[in-house]
Structures are given as structure tokens and as C-alpha cells.
């Protein structure tokens, strides 16, 4: 027994997962979803002792045992991809059959070598109209190398804005520095810290495979060499069941 959702309801769900096309057009320079391609040395949590926190913490957070680049964990991020408006299907009827289909044949450049084992999807931090924001002094921790910004998922905060008190900027999320923009954005309207301005974990999956494989995330090659260009085939997700 299972509850069955109508086509429109499934469409709503799929839309919610996919996101609105609106932003992608209005902010064409930015992305809608941020993808981090994770080395298979880190496994998706299996519901036992290795938790979702462990997984994300290993892949993304600035912990004390981070490998080659202190504080960055970047060795597990083989590459990233930021969705663009042109990645999205223009025929949204595709969503009515509850199939979420994202991107076609988009290229990305590997940062590290390894084998893709999973993918983390993030929503970027909120993008805020410049006239509405102040940037509080951004505390970039000493354990966070600025160079990590090159691995960022999404646009990083420009270095010139790190201490941009009273100035206005558009702020995006990065895999690394994202955590450091805590308290970095203030609404000039409410006077309080803009609590809604952070990127967020959207989803992750270890369903990775070749293009046309039907995996949630499709790649032309799972074995990655740093510096090489690869193709991100797309994202597939079928919404079938709610219980």
C-alpha cells in the first residue's frame, strides 16, 4: 500500500526539487544547483555508524584532519559543477511524469584525480540584491586557505569584500568559505543578520554511472584525472512513491 500522487502533485514535487527557472534567468551568471563530485573513498552513509553528518563533514567541512590542504578536505572533491540556465530543459512537461531530468552534456574540469563515488548537491546561498545588504566582516578562519575558493561550489565571496563593512555585495556559497559567511550578511531592512542567506544541502547520491545508464548522476567517465575536462551527463530522478 502506498499513497499515489497525481500528476500535478508530482509535478509540484519535481519542481521543488529542481528549482525555479526564474532565478536561473534573472541571475544567469549564477547557478541553481551546485554539484560536488566526491571521491569514492568517502561513502554515502549507510544508516549505521557513519552518519550523514560524517559524510558531509568529511567532504565539505573544515575539520582538523583534512589531508593535503589543511582545513579544506578538498582531496575528496574531484570537481564541481554549477548549473546554468541552459542546462535546464525548456520543455517542462517532462516534469509531469515525475521525472526530474537535469542537464545535458555539460563539461567540467577536474580539480583532483580519483573515482567519482557520489555527488553532493547544494543549493547556493541566497543571492541578495546589493542595495539591501551589508557585508559584515567576514571571518575567514586561519585554517581555511583562500585558495580553496577555487574549489568552491558556487561563486565565492570576493577577497575585496572580506572586510567590506557597510558595502554591498552579492554573496554566494562556496563549498569551503560558505561556512565562514556566518554572520557575514546583514539585512539593512530588518537590522538583523540575514538568516536566510546560506547555501544548503539539497541531496546526495551514490547512484553514479555512465551517460545513458539511468543512474541519478551520469558521467562520461567516473575515473577522473586532475586538470582534464569531462562531461556531466545529467541528473535523473523519478518520483514515484510517497508513504
Amino acid at each position, binding site marked *: *500500500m502506498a*499513497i*499515489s*500522487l*497525481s*500528476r*500535478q*502533485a508530482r509535478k*509540484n*514535487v519535481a*519542481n*521543488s*526539487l529542481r*528549482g*525555479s*527557472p*526564474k*532565478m536561473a*534567468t*534573472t*541571475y544567469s551568471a549564477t547557478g*541553481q544547483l551546485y554539484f560536488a563530485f566526491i571521491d569514492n573513498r568517502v561513502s*554515502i*552513509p549507510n544508516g549505521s555508524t557513519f*552518519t*550523514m*553528518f*560524517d559524510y*558531509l*563533514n568529511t567532504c*565539505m*567541512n573544515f575539520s582538523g584532519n583534512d589531508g593535503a590542504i589543511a582545513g579544506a578536505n578538498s582531496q575528496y572533491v574531484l570537481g564541481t559543477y554549477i548549473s546554468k540556465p541552459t542546462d535546464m530543459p525548456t520543455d*517542462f512537461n517532462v516534469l509531469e511524469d515525475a521525472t526530474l531530468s537535469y542537464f545535458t552534456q555539460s563539461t567540467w574540469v577536474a580539480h583532483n584525480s580519483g573515482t567519482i563515488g557520489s555527488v553532493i*548537491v547544494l*543549493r547556493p546561498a*541566497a*543571492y*541578495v*540584491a546589493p542595495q*539591501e545588504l551589508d557585508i559584515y566582516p567576514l571571518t575567514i578562519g586561519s585554517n581555511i586557505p583562500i585558495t580553496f575558493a577555487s574549489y568552491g561550489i558556487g561563486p565565492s565571496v570576493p577577497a575585496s569584500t572580506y572586510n567590506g563593512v557597510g558595502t554591498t555585495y552579492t554573496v554566494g556559497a562556496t563549498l569551503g568559505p*560558505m*561556512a565562514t559567511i*556566518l554572520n557575514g550578511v546583514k539585512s539593512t*531592512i530588518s537590522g538583523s543578520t540575514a*538568516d*536566510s*542567506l*546560506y*547555501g*544548503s*544541502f*539539497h*541531496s*546526495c*547520491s*551514490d*547512484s553514479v554511472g555512465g551517460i545513458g545508464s539511468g*543512474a541519478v548522476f551520469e558521467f562520461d567517465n567516473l575515473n577522473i584525472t586532475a586538470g582534464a575536462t569531462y562531461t556531466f551527463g545529467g541528473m535523473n530522478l523519478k518520483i514515484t512513491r*510517497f*508513504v
Partner: protein
Amino acid sequence: MATYVLGPMAFPGYTWTNELSNTAVGIYTGPSNFQLSAHNIDTAPQWVSGIVSGCGRYSTNTNVNGDADHDYYGFVVESYEQATTRLGSSAGTTLVPANCNLPFGQEFFPLITVGSTSTTNKWQKFLAGGPTGATRLNIYSGSKPTNVDAITDLTAYNSNLLISFSIPAFATNNTTGFKFLNYDLGIYPRIGINSTYPEMEPLKMVLGICPTKTLSTGDGNATWFWFGNYSSPSNLDGISYLTGDVGLIGSGSDLEMADTMINSGNYYTSSGFNFTIPVYYSV
């Protein structure tokens, strides 16, 4: 078996503090574009989108609906309680998000709204929520249609209709409409992921709560139900609804009753049925 894991179901309030909660704070869907001052929704999107919408107020400017509130769409963005706590008594639940139909002609709706009144006629897009009577819970005898999409005209099943609950609007005290079981949306820290709460929880709700005594109109053994928007029951094209099985309490059915035998002329109330948006999916 491969796994797909959906992120936290709720958009955070302002309570994250440290650790990974800063980066794993909620499923923050939609345009990922949230602006703190008012803009016309069709020219400067400002909403968060997802399964459940709420709304709050950030400024006194007017948006496209003529309301001062801003739209939040989300896998539950925040509850009325949270909005009120955070924003003061002016926080509203009355706003139905306008559709985002530009530039692609794509209507964009969450699944559930806590809104109850609106100047926009978009209720049919929502599975739950809206003003009283916007949604209904119908209980039927006979065989449930095997394909939910085959139900194009609900009136075709009237001969098997046993009772039809007109669902009241969402109430913040969880007594009518629907309720959230495991989130006080927004503030509750469990929506984030951190070392204290290292795993996510599914979004658990109860839909179809109707404490109003409702007269049954048919006789028979309840076997399945239809729940959803009732604005166009004879033409369900573009309507959000769902179907499920009915069984006795403890049967594990989607909707459980103490007695599935319905007699016409009796009065019933509905405590609803469970609706869960899971976190982990096998794919």
C-alpha cells in the same frame, strides 16, 4: 543498491550556530534567490520554493499579490509560529504564492501551503492547504483505481462515495486541515545537520484533519480514499490530489479507521492520514 538522499526538509530559521549546520541547513529550493526587501515577484524573485509554503513579512512594500508579505516556498520554510516569533505578529499565513510563470511559462508551486486566503486562484495546484473546503477527503468503497492518473473525473466514482469531508483551513494549533508531526518548522534545530543531530528526518505530516462532524451519504465498506484539491472534481487535469488505501486501525493502511463499514446518515470526523516525504530513497 544505490541511494538518493534528500536533504533536510525544512528551511532553517536563524538558529544554526556552528559546524556543518551552516552548510546543511535545509532543502532550500527554488530560485535560491531570496531578497530581503520587497520586489515585485515577477521581476525580482524572492522566494524559496519547495514542498510546503509559508510566508512571513520582511517589509511593508507590496508584492504582486497586493500583500505586504513575501512568499516563501519550501520543503516547509517556516511555520506560522516561527514567522510570528521571528517577525512579530504581522507575520501572515494568508498569502498564496503567486505562480512563477515567467519567463518559461512554468507554473511553480509547492505541494502544500499554510496559506488560507488569497486573491490568486491557484488553490488547485496545491495538494493541501488553502481555505476551508479547498480540499476534500473522500472515502470510497470498491476497488481503488490502479492508476492514479486515470482518475480524470472524480464524480465518476460518486456511486461508491461513502463520505466526503470538507477540510478546514490549516490551523496553527494543529487541529484542522493538516499538521506537522516532527518539525516546528524553521526554528527546530533538527532540521539542520550537525554533530548532535547527524541524520536527517523525513517530513512527517497528517493531512485531511476534519473535526467537523460530517454526514455520511453512502453505505458500504471503505476501501480507498481520494484527497486533494476540490476546485474542479469533474475535471482533475492540473489538480493536485492523491489516493490511498483504507483499512482498520493497525492494518498499516494509508488511512486507518476503527470500523470501515460506513452507514449513511451517520456523522464522522477525520483525524487524517499520515503523509511522509522520505529522506532516503533506493534508486
